[in-house]
């Protein structure tokens, strides 16, 4: 039997079927977690914010446009949840020492990939919260400037300048 579409699961979740929402969570939790991990760079914190994202999204399900895909929407919600979390905390989170898995079997190559990934993640995590948000939405969610402006409720000029400055900082840290 074919797996139900996200749309069907959302309709069932709207009718109060918690299990249907649980299936949506199971489908999208990893991509949402990756958004949170890129923005927070701390596994425990990222898992908490992943949960928080799904809780908030559940209360907004009635307003979700069924004609649009659920994945990009929930990842945008995640980026906003993380941004709000970072701005409310205003403290430095202790960063994970976790390394990314490499695709190559050669130990040196695996090590190099992991080190490079870790370097990028650390560089991202060192950015101010609003810079992280624009990088996440532009590079990983592939949103346009206009969409980012709408999502973050900031002027288009701020999107451009934040992206420009964020990339400049990243380039400095990664060279």
């Amino acid at each position: 039997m074919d797996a139900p579409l996200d749309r069907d699961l959302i309709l069932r979740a709207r009718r109060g079927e918690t299990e249907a929402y649980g299936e949506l969570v199971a489908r999208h939790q990893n991509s949402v977690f990756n958004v949170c991990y890129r923005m927070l760079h701390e596994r425990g914190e990222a898992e908490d914010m992943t949960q928080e994202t799904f809780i908030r999204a559940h209360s907004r399900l009635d307003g979700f446009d069924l004609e649009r895909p659920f994945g990009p929407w929930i990842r945008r919600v995640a980026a906003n949840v993380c941004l709000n979390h970072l701005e409310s905390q205003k403290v430095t989170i202790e960063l994970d020492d976790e390394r990314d898995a490499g695709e190559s079997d050669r130990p040196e190559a695996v090590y190099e990939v992991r080190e490079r990934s870790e370097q990028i993640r650390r560089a991202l995590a060192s950015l101010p919260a609003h810079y992280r948000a624009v990088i996440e939405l532009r590079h990983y969610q592939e949103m346009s400037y206009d969409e980012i402006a709408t999502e973050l409720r900031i002027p288009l000029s701020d999107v451009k300048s934040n992206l420009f400055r964020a990339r400049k900082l990243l380039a400095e840290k990664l060279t």
Partner: protein
Amino acid sequence: MTHLSDEILNEYLDDAFSDRISAEKHLAECADCAARLAALQALFTQLDSLPEMTLSRDLAAPVMRRVRGSGFLPRWLTLTMVLQAALALIVTMVAAPFVIEFASASMPALEAPSLTETIVEVQLQWMAWLDALSQFEVPSVPTIPAADISSLSFLFVLAAVSILWLVGNGLLLRNQNK
């Protein structure tokens, strides 16, 4: 030759620069701008190369627990609650004249008595109520002049409302216990 600014190079790579043709023409002729564009492109590639991480635990179960405990109700259940509240209000308004009439006929007026008198009076009333209850016969319910509803119709309405009320509460409780 005027070089392309860093802002323009960013917009160019983001497909957000309107005059792409002139930018491409300049990039083809200017090694300096082409090198700056290549450096920026390399940063994009690095960001794209970041591998996906894997969750260490399934979050579906804790999310479902929290959703159940959040008291969030689907729209149709919220409507049921609103309907119940509206019905309760209507029944109260319809029943009020009957209750007042019945109460005024069976209870004597109280004249600001002292606390002791009040307690004694309440006890006496209570005894009288118990006595009346033991000899209670179902009174004929008066008709409502404005709506011209007979006693039987009124009882049917009350019964229907009670059933609706019970069904609504059953649905709400079932949803809560899921």
